[in-house]
């Protein structure tokens, strides 16, 4: 049952974690909008989500091994930041900075909204579970 609960909430929990990490990356870009030679970076959310859901953390990177058939698999929860890729700017800047404020701000707002969507969905899931428990 606990495994089922974890499975139920796991998807949106992973989404929330990745959204929070992306928010940090975008905040870094916005903060460095005036730093010469700073290269704006971002990660592909869909890709990061897929790899976070498919692969549990390997033992070599601090994950837990399943040594008994009754052990529950542990999803990768504390994985570091997904691989960051530099953005390719639409317009070049004289000081070598590739932050485009319109792109960053729209990505930031969208990401914040999607974070709230995941939070709302997880909230309604918890509500459903509670109503089942309370009858």
């Amino acid at each position: 049952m606990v495994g089922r609960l974890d499975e139920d909430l796991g998807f949106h929990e992973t989404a929330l974690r990745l959204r929070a990490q992306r928010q940090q990356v975008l905040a870094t870009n916005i903060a460095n909008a005036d730093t010469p030679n700073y290269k704006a970076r971002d990660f592909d959310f869909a890709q990061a989500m897929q790899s976070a859901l498919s692969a549990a953390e390997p033992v070599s990177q601090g994950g837990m091994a399943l040594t008994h058939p009754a052990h529950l698999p542990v999803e990768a929860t504390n994985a570091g930041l997904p691989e960051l890729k530099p953005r390719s700017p639409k317009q070049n800047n004289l000081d070598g900075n590739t932050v485009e404020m319109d792109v960053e701000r729209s990505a930031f707002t969208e990401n914040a909204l999607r974070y709230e969507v995941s939070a709302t969905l997880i909230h309604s899931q918890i509500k459903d579970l509670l109503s089942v428990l309370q009858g």
Partner: protein
Amino acid sequence: MSLLNVFQIAGSAMTAQSQRLNVVASNLANAESSTGPDGQAYRAKQVQFMAAPLPGTGGATGVKVDKVIEDQTSPRMVYNPSHPQADAKGYVAMPNVNVVDEMVNMLSASRSYQTNVDTMNAAKSMLLKTLTLGQ
């Protein structure tokens, strides 16, 4: 927790931008200072930003003012023979402050500061939304 790092990232940018605004204020205030403590005309100052990793955040990058550099262009020579500091030909060395540049710098610093305040507010509302989960 990635979202809490946003506060430090945006905070470092706000500190850096307010320092830039300080330098602009100093330049504008001294735009007509024909002499300083060393007897020379005031020289315009500019801040240089640098992307800097923030300690204790697990690799988040903020901004800091790397150094304040003095504008090395030659002073503006103004013909004013009645000035006590006029040279033999009647010219006075005035500061190399470009008031138009400084106004642009001021607007840019204040806009960047506002953007980072917005960033912080967005992170705050996301965290508050997370706190209401399951209530």
